[in-house]
């Protein structure tokens, strides 16, 4: 009996991703320095260009169906003249304990061996559970089959699937670029090294606010930045264990700062 149970367990586990929540080969991590970020949104357009994000138009924007995988959130505090505007770029946090992965009935979203939260478009049946469970509101749904006015479709990145109607999607940490880097590394018989992979947002960021790399590599830039005393993670109290690390913005928040001199 126990033999059958063990067999069954093995069988079940074989369907499950081996290495799930164990040590990953790579641990892709993004560090966002909020003190550098000036909210220019270059990352947003870069993401549109890289990942074939459709433009939905004014009406759909109005009901919050904009597609950007990365968005700049801004929080405005204080009254004139002591106004503080704070920016934060938010993309999929690739949580190690991701609520979305719990919810998906068909494993369309799951954790891969690089610590990425992967979305498999063609497995998605569209139950919306992942997006509902997501505490960062980063998931986007293909409400329609989106069309590109010809010849705009010539710009579409062939490395990234054009998603069809009824499918959930989100920031992938530019997995296609990771794949290319791994492919090259494999050809050259080495591991992917720091700097091989640049996500589209990181690449475009004029202030260098975004850094991407492997946290398992102690010498990578992200590993060093991740030790910063300014480190925090978004909504850390929810214990989702995000892979995106933010560095606190340097800013005097005390009220009346501006007018204290004036």
């Amino acid at each position: 009996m126990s033999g059958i149970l063990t067999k069954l367990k093995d069988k079940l586990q074989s369907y499950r991703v081996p290495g799930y929540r164990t040590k990953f080969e790579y641990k892709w991590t993004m560090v966002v320095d909020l003190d550098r970020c000036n909210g220019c949104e270059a990352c947003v357009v870069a993401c549109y260009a890289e990942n074939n994000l459709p433009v939905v138009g004014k009406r759909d924007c109005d009901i919050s169906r904009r597609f950007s995988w990365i968005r700049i959130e801004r929080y405005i505090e204080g009254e004139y003249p002591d106004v503080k505007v704070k920016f934060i770029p938010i993309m999929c946090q690739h949580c190690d304990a991701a609520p979305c992965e719990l919810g998906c009935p068909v494993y369309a979203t799951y954790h891969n061996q690089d610590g990425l939260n992967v979305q498999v478009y063609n497995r998605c049946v569209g139950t919306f559970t992942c997006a509902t469970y997501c505490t960062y509101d980063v998931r986007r749904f293909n409400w329609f089959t989106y069309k590109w006015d010809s010849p705009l479709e010539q710009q579409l990145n062939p490395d990234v699937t054009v998603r069809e109607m009824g499918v959930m999607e989100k920031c992938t940490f530019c997995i296609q670029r990771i794949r290319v880097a791994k492919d090259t590394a494999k050809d050259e018989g080495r591991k992917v090294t720091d700097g091989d992979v640049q996500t589209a947002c990181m690449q475009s960021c004029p202030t260098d606010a975004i850094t991407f790399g492997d946290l398992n590599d102690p010498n990578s830039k992200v590993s060093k930045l991740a030790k910063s005393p300014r480190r925090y993670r978004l909504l850390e109290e929810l214990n989702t264990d995000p892979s995106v690390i933010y560095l606190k913005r340097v800013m005097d928040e005390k009220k009346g700062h501006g007018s204290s001199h004036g």
Partner: protein
Amino acid sequence: MKNLIVNFIILVIFVVTLGVGYLIADQYIGRAPEQPINFSHKIHAGTNEIPCMYCHIYAERAKVSGAPNVQRCMGCHKIIKTESPEIKKLAGYWERQEPIPWIKVHNLPDHVDFTHKRHIKAGRKCQECHGPVETMDRVTRVASLKMGWCLKCHAKYNVKNGRECWTCHI
């Protein structure tokens, strides 16, 4: 009464299979569409033993293997068998500087990220997926190219991450 039910069931089966047939119309094993030029792999790869990658030059380096460019065809056929009607067709394309609109026999949906390069580098033979092309006069599909078929092979060769979704789907 009973006949009615039976007829109804027959109708349902007919309609359903009609739909199934429509869906698989261009992706079934044995599919061998007529090509603009009646190119014979049997003559080229079989009789003359030209290696696959002499013509499909990108297979080792890229996701796609690439149809041979027209220049490559003409490289030989400027002298060989120039009077045959098929070669004349080819020469016609070349003179018009028009690429040949081959019809894909093996076509994968957009969400599959298949790369020839990795498979060739792993030592797989072209024939493992494309069948004994060197014996075919007209290329015929021998594999379903469905996910289960891919996985069977990945399991057979114990491919690292061979059953991970993101290995083929991004």
